[in-house]
């Protein structure tokens, strides 16, 4: 089957079976390898992309279901203000270790900030719970999201600590 896809502001035509997940169309047909394969079951979030600005697990999204949706991947998210702020915060505090999950983390965080510009600690933790970082850079991912949102990176952690002081 032939599909017309809107990816990162360009239109691509691909000839693949309709049930092929978008992840593999991006990686193996279009050569956009920034979107990562981690689990194939929507369990880890490494394959997160935006469809019309909303985070989606591309490993579980059949290409036939994309339709006219505008797809944004990590290769292009830096052209959005939120994406650029997240990338800058990520680099400023050196979030990553191996970096394999980070495309998915940034895409998911960008989706969060688009709907919740000033997230609380709980907002961040519940929104990011579906994205595994095997190296466990979670402290800094959380901090970078707060920085990108213009929040004091340390505030919430201190509040939490005070609340639990024994």
């Amino acid at each position, binding site marked *: 089957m032939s599909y017309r896809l809107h990816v990162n502001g360009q239109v691509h035509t691909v000839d693949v*079976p309709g049930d092929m997940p978008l992840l*593999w169309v991006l990686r193996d*047909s279009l050569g956009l*390898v*920034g979107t990562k394969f981690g689990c194939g079951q929507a369990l880890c979030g490494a394959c997160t992309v935006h469809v019309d600005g909303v985070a989606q697990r591309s490993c579980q999204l059949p290409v036939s279901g994309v339709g006219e949706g505008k797809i944004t991947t990590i290769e292009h998210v830096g052209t959005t203000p939120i994406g650029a702020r997240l990338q800058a915060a990520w680099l400023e505090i050196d979030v990553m270790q191996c970096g394999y999950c980070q495309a998915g983390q940034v895409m998911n965080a960008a989706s969060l900030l688009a709907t919740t510009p000033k997230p609380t600690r709980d907002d961040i933790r519940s929104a990011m719970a579906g994205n*595994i970082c095997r190296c466990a850079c979670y402290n800094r991912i*959380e901090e970078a999201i707060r920085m990108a949102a213009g929040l004091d990176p340390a505030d919430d952690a201190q509040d939490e*600590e005070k609340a639990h002081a024994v």
Partner: protein
Amino acid sequence: MRSDRRMFLKASLLAGGGLALEAFVGAPARAAVAARPAALTAFVSIAPDGQVTIVGKNPEIGQGVKTSLPMIVADELDCDWAQVRIVQADADLARYGVQVSGGSMSTPTNWLPMRQTGAAARAMLLQAAAARWSVPATELATSKGRITHAASGRSCGYGEVASAAARLTPPAPDSLRLKQPAEFTIIGRPIAGIDGPRVLRGEPLFGIDTRLPGMLYAVYEVAPAHGGRLVKADIEAAKAAPGVRHVLPITGDGNADSGLADGIAIVATHWWLANQARAKLAAQWDLSAAKGHSTERYRARAQELLAAGDGQELRREGDPDAALAAAAKRVSARYGYPFLAHGTLEPQNCTAHFKDGRIEIWAPSQTPARGRELVQKMLKLPALDDVIVHVTRAGGGFGRRLLNDYMLQAAAISHALPGTPVQLIWSREDDIRRDYYRPAGWHGFEAGLDAAGRLTAFTDHFVTFGDGARVTRAGTLTLTMPPADLIPHLRFTQSQMPTVLTTGWLRAPGSNALCFASQSFLDEVAHAAGKDLPTLMRELVAEPRVIAPFGGRGVPFDTVRAKGVIDKVLQSSAWAERAHGSRGRSGEAARAKGFAFYFCHHGYFAEVVDASVAGSEVTVHKVWVAGDVGSQIINPFGAENQVRGAIIDGLAQALMGQSIEVVDGVVQQSNFHDFRLARMPITPDIEIAWVKSDHPPTGLGEPALPPVIPALTNAIFAATGQRIRSLPVRLA
């Protein structure tokens, strides 16, 4: 760490001008090196425009060596970090020496050679400038890639004298003056990972991102049980599936442990299509070799072995039997822990291209040079140079990629399809079911306390896996495990049982399990003696001394460094003021702190966990870490990341239910829903304190992990009175 490590330097002119300095670490074969074009693989090169290029020697697996080792070179070179470009080295033992990312050894083995390399390049640039200006080199100073002569006011960039420096003979490494720590300008500064911007732009960096013209994608179907052999499969049906180009049954080499397993390769235009075609194979396997190999059976057998007696003696000091008989108080307990998978987030993968009798490979491997040798041997290629291994960034290692089974598979597939590049990718299910698991193990401990409450005797009957002659990989007992060497009477014994599971090294191998068992048991011993574990540990390391490693091999243990980190963490965590287990009343969470100490991979770590328990739910609020890895933290950004990652990794092993279960050789877990990894909501606050000591810096990939697990289980005991003697944590 090995100061006997030989190194020599060789200079040559870069194509287009500039200095190319090769550094050979670890006594390579000079003849093999001399025959090759030097400038292509120079360790450090300085172009006429001042651009500095440094080779990233060891594989980058997220531990930060691609940034930290070049930082060491750049600092002694005294250049500006902004001028530095880093290129990843191909696997080449003769040219680069050992290129293993494992055992937290990259830092200790490269600290001195990297400094000498940078210092040698700087000395040659100075010598060239001195000759140009006809002044003594001793009157010259450097800063940020520029040379200045204060007396005459002259200055030049490194690039301007680089070509002249290339004609000089490099100085002897031992003759170089190295910087004093106060002179460091790059070492010790938090510097962001060199590949960060490219990762965040989604550029191709990882093995799985390799793209070659005409490349096809492959899966490698293996038996569902370890040791299984292929009986038959419907090759034609798989070949007829959409997008499939080739289906290749491949006979393994019979080495079920680290060789090529029997399998069927499906090669297609897209990886997903290759993976979908697996269902058409209807493969039949002979699984008889694995029958009866079940974790349930292993656990029962371990208890039988512990009950049956002491097993084979591995180490004895003093007279433990007499000491136990004479003890005022005896404590005994059994501990156990499960098989674990690694779960690197980038699945195992390898790209191979066999053409005209040579094979080119792109692999995320922790031991690429070893893989290169194995591929040469498997394909019976005449020379090692017929195998080219490009080292890609690896999406996590954790010890999994110390073994190169996926590289052999990709090479075998590519060899069968000459001229066609093939990328093999394992599914997550392949990865969880065909790992080199951290082996399960069991311990029967006994300890004796004298009338004064001092620990005098300690015995451990360790049950592990092996064929009787040889213990399975990563299943050995560390014979210096504390309290060994710290008390007069000791016995370590061992029993083995066979397994069909392949086992291997998981981050802090051995220690990740032994620390849990021994430090939890010593917490029990401390309680029996009416004190806490840090008090017991401080007594054991009270005498300042350096203990030579048992049997003469390994690393000495310095009691002063041990005491240093213990005291530091007690201070930072305000241990003395802690509440003694606010036992939960009717539904209220119980909260307490727990402590543990360990020494492994050259690093001394003491950690305190603050946790609360409500029903069967454990919440970790905060972890305090005190670590001594020598005189210098090379890159605080990377160092703290390693510690945080290790802490959360350890907590996940304990709290996320991680356990690989096997029935008749078939692994029951398959993906991240039933082999669960840490996620953001379990992440505690982590406070790290470095204890600097006058020793060369050592590595951080591993040693922070082991203590956090017993610190957690000891906190659970303090909070609830429930002693956790088996991992993962399961509360009643």
